């Protein structure tokens, strides 16, 4: 009873203080948080510190026995053949270079990390390669979305990065340390458009693109642009999502418009099924595509339905030049299979880096970057590689025809 009588008094006299105490906690947390975050120390600062460490580490590293090159690829994941082929090409190149004495007397060491096809994994992988393994240069990635995740980090740490097959223009726009040894999508789209108009004499074409894949969307729009400029007509545009297995709906709609060819700029995973279902629906016109078709699986899944289709690619196995044939025979020896264009691109990318390393006079990463930028008419398997001012490679594309399980060379289209 007495406690009841006492309580209100205590509450009243200590009320305000209690209030301040209780809410002090909140205010204090808020202010300390605000202070600590307003005087923020970002990763950039830490980056600039470590990048100066890294560049000074370049010199002592050059004095050591090995030059480390990092590779990020998707060795697992749905586009595993892309990553594995590229890796095989790179590994073969490194092996060859080391066998012939290495670069300036030092051996090259390849450190590969699998990113499982995920952009954030690619970012973590490249961070690890640069900060932990202290690589001199980075090779990667095949897919533009993963290259886009990696590029800002490589640029930040001023480590040169060469993508073997990313074709999205935005990749090299990330910074002056980012290069590629392949052509870009605007060019590739034009290639097939020109081929369709000049060689197949097609006036009406349908497009079936993959909406989940930016490569596919980009190629489709560049193709449409060039085709229309040349006087052609895109009769219908349909889309699918990567992972779909049924395309009959879209193909039925396409069939009703009677196109003379269908442009399917997707990855081999879906194109094989699309070809089959097109044949089932009675569509006889040729299919056209891009370098995303290039995989041994395409012939497997597509089977006979793939015959009479064409796609643009980086190189052809029928090219009789000594560089190409040499590469093919060595690849067959080592891996017992015919190299696809991704392996060829990986091979070229690795050799371009080694060549640039041989040419550089200084020991800093900036010198290496400048040497790569100065690459002129390098004899690659995929053609003569010259790096232009936008750090892209100016090259020609070949058009291949699928016939009875083989890719037959049709023609070369120059930029």
């Amino acid at each position: 009873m007495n406690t009841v009588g006492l309580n209100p008094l205590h509450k009243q006299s200590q009320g305000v203080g209690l209030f301040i105490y209780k809410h002090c906690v909140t205010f204090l947390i808020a202010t300390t948080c605000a202070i600590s975050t307003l005087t923020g120390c970002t990763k950039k600062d830490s980056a600039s510190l470590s990048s100066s460490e890294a560049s000074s580490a370049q010199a002592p590293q050059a004095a050591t026995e090995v030059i480390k090159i990092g590779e990020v690829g998707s060795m697992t994941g749905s586009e595993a053949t892309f990553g594995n082929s590229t890796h095989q090409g790179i590994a073969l190149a490194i092996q060859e270079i080391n066998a012939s004495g290495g670069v300036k007397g030092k051996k090259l060491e390849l450190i590969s990390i699998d990113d499982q096809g995920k952009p954030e994994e690619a970012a973590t992988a490249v961070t690890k390669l640069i900060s932990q393994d202290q690589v001199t240069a980075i090779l990667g990635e095949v897919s533009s979305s993963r290259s886009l995740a990696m590029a800002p980090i490589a640029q930040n740490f001023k480590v040169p990065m060469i993508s073997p097959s990313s074709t999205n223009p935005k990749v090299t726009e990330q910074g002056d340390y980012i290069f590629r040894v392949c052509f870009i999508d605007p060019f590739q789209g034009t290639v097939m458009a020109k081929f369709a108009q000049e060689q197949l004499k097609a006036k009406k074409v349908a497009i079936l693109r993959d909406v989940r894949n930016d490569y596919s969307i980009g190629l489709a729009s560049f193709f449409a642009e060039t085709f229309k400029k040349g006087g052609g007509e895109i009769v219908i545009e349909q889309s699918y999502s990567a992972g779909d297995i049924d395309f009959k709906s879209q193909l039925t709609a396409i069939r009703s418009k009677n196109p003379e060819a269908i442009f399917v700029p997707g990855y081999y995973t879906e194109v094989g099924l699309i070809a089959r279902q097109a044949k089932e629906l009675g569509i006889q016109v040729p299919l056209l595509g891009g370098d995303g078709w290039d995989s041994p699986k395409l012939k497997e899944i597509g089977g006979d339905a793939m015959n009479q289709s064409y796609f643009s690619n980086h190189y052809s196995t029928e090219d009789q030049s000594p560089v190409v044939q040499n590469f093919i025979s060595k690849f067959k020896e080592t891996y017992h299979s015919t190299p696809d264009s991704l392996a060829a691109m990986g091979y070229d990318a690795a050799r371009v880096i080694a060549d640039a390393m041989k040419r550089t006079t200084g020991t800093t990463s900036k010198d290496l970057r400048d040497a790569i930028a100065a690459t002129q008419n390098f004899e690659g398997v995929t053609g003569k590689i010259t790096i232009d001012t936008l750090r892209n490679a100016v090259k020609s594309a070949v058009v291949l025809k699928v016939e009875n399980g083989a890719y037959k060379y049709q023609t070369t289209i120059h930029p």
Partner: protein
Amino acid sequence: MIEFMQHLINGLSLGSIYALIALGYTMVFGILQLINFAHGDVYMLGAFTGMYTIRVFHLNDHPSFSSLMITLLAAMIGCATVGYAIERLAYRRLRKSPRINVLITAVGVSLFLEFSGQLIFGSDPKFFPQIYTPQLNFSAGELRLNPLQVIVFAISLILMGVLQFIIFRTRLGRAMRAVSFNHDLASLMGIPTDRVISYTFMLGSAMAGAAGVLVGIIYPKIDPLMGTLPGLKAFVAAVLGGVGNVTGAVIGALTLGLAEEFLVGYWTPTYRDALAFAILILILLFKPTGLFGVRRSEKV
């Protein structure tokens, strides 16, 4: 008109595949009130079992109806075993646990099957060999019908008929229905509930395995993640038809297949997968028991 008929055929064909998977879902849910998330992955395992059977016995060298039957049988037996294993190892112990634990375990099993599938088989797509190339022609002018589609539809209907027979004309079926009404009372009546539940799982998984092989035949690309989305859609089909109701599952699946096909054909393929979830929400909000389901009251 032709386009409409073509879409109709495509939709029915798609739906019959969903139906086979939905049957397993609905049976298991009817008995255990459990959504077996792993069911879609059993379907995937069926496809892979089929592929490896073909490779081992070189069945694709002589494409024939009997090769198809052998593959189907092998896949069904393999998946029945997997279904039994899942029930025994993962679900049996959790019969008395809160629902959320069982749900999480189901998700865990599903993901385990998917990821180990990726590990064992490789995550890139594989080619399902051609084991049956019927020289029939069901096409009528512009209307193209893949003979395999007809075969698949026919086999699905036959399997559904067999299931109906088992559930309504055999003792096992009666036992299954009894257990689904009241678990404890059924065991009091002398029904070996554990065994009945195992049989249910095995039957359902066998259906899913058959679906896997049939899909491999029509769409010869298979990969370890192929079961996720069809599994979810089959679940929606089961709910649409009324969970626990076998005919309902079939009707629901065919409806879903048709709806999907018409959505893609006449509007846009972008929201193809979203359609299933939209249907699920609508059905659960407006008619939770599904088209053919029975209202069950919840005891407090």
